[in-house]
């Protein structure tokens, strides 16, 4: 289900004229972005081009100084990551945002813990630890992640790839409309990267909008439907793997090639 006829559809997530400055440093200088259901939109750009700032603005981790964000055509204002989450946007941050000392199940359900049924849950606010562990195990298994087995292991004892798998599993398990992945393959080996890319494709097949930030051009050209090229805080253009080669993409990214 590749994206076609974008003009006729309402984007699930849309941004217009986003501006974010940090003192004198301009992070975003008026950026537009559209994401449709069932597509993978890659965001590429050099270091400091504003990729992470753009993503943080879209996911409530930063509040933009100016500009508008809308979902399904309705304007939204995210003040905290929780706001974006409630609206159906799940994010896998580059820093992974996992609590190292807590176990895998606790991390999957962090900030949306489930309580026991009955009096134990309503009056004593008791957590349904067993249920959360089982469901965590199920979501990890559904994604075909084999490297993580025991849900009661502390995250800090996992390898980088395993931690990534936990963070991706969390986003996939709760992603309502949009899943944002910031450099999901940066710390992974070839095999684990392949698994994450398959996961990205399965999210698209479920009809979610996926934003993928990556430095890895082969990965981007493999899974992306459209590619948003970010340069010096602005959008240098949107290309597709069919319309442009990887070399062209890098040229746009570095400013060697200007899109009309």
């Amino acid at each position, binding site marked *: 289900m590749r994206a076609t006829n974008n003009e006729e559809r309402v984007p699930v997530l849309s941004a217009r004229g986003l501006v974010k400055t940090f003192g004198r440093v301009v992070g975003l200088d008026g950026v537009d972005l559209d994401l449709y259901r069932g597509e993978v939109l890659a965001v590429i750009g050099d270091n400091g081009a504003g990729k992470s700032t753009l993503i943080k603005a879209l996911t409530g*981790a930063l509040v933009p100084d100016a500009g508008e964000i809308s979902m399904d055509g309705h304007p939204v204002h995210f003040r*905290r*990551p*929780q706001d974006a*989450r409630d609206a159906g946007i799940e*994010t896998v*941050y580059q*820093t*992974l*945002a*996992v*609590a*190292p*000392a*807590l176990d895998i199940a*606790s*991390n999957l359900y*962090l*900030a*949306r*813990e489930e*309580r026991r049924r009955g009096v134990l849950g309503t009056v*004593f*606010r*008791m*957590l349904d*630890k067993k249920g959360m562990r089982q469901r965590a195990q199920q979501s990890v298994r559904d994604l075909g992640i084999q490297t993580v087995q025991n849900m009661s*292991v*502390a995250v*800090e*004892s*996992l390898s980088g790839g395993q931690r990534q798998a936990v963070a991706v599993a969390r986003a996939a398990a709760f992603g309502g409309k949009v899943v944002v992945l910031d450099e999901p393959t940066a710390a992974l080996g070839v095999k684990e990267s392949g698994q994450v890319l398959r996961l990205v494709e399965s999210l698209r097949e479920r009809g979610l909008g996926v934003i993928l930030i990556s430095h890895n051009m082969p990965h981007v050209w493999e899974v992306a439907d459209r590619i948003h090229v970010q340069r010096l805080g602005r959008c240098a253009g949107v290309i597709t793997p069919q319309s442009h080669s990887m070399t062209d993409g890098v040229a746009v990214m570095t400013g060697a090639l200007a899109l009309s």
Partner: protein
Amino acid sequence: MSSPDATASVAARELAERRRRPAQRIQQLLHGHPAISPALILVVTCVVFSTQNERFAEPGTISLMVQQTAVVAALAVGQTLIILTAGIDLSVGAAAILSMMVMATYGSEHGLPGPVALALGLAVGIVCGVVNGALVTGLKLPPFIATLGTLSVFTAITLLYTGGQSIQQMDMPELLGWTGEIHAIGDFRITNGVLLCAALYLVVGFALSQTAWGRHVYAVGDDPEAARLAGIRTPRVLFSVYVVAGVVYGIAAWILIGRAGAASPNAIADANLESITAVVIGGTSLFGGRGGVVGTLLGALIVQSFTLGLSLAGVDDQYRLLAVGILVVAAVSVDQWIRKVRA
């Protein structure tokens, strides 16, 4: 396709098994159960002291030890919560004393009924927590500095308010001295204060291990930025921890009246350091996110068993300080070591 993968993972698992030396196994065990080391220390201490002096293991001595531990152990519950968020509270003792003096004064001089005086005292404890919490979450002061300031402020307010005068328990309503009432269970003598302290441990221990709030306290102490990105309202969690600690200090103040038989503005001068000592010996990490109240209770008992054991042995009190100091350094070193664990 699956068979080479399977062999590879089996080989990797074997390698991982082989690499795990005995020291690493211990490291892993302590990592999963940080209360093991204080439990071992407490057992060894008690065994050594009771072989040295048979009076140590007598019910009377143990009862005394538990009664003497209750106040510091109660204060250390609040301290544990704050240290779990990677903070520290230097104002514990001062907050408890202020709360106690308000209780005692309203109960005696102003002649208010016991429950009202108690409620006013507890309210003062909560206000102390709110002030600390507001300084840490609102003004974003480091907890060390914020509570260093409030330590002096609370102490000064107490002395100005009381004029440095103590109040005897006999002048107070009966309820305020209720925590000193003794129950005999066999040869053991347990006070209401000890039971209250035990209840405090049960309630806070339950909240930390079984509720979402507890998970959030650990997450905020562990990695505040990760907790925030995961959707936890970190300032709210942090603030709630200081307020709960304030409630705990108020209850500790009540226990102290029963224990001391009087309310003195100069009581428990060492409570700040003693509560921190109990928490640290109990295996809770000063870097936050690791530990719990079980360890703290063991830590408080260890300090008290040293005090009693060494005084029974007729040793100079300075040796107790020496031993406790060594334990603190050892506990923090063990914490640093087990934090480096890798599966």
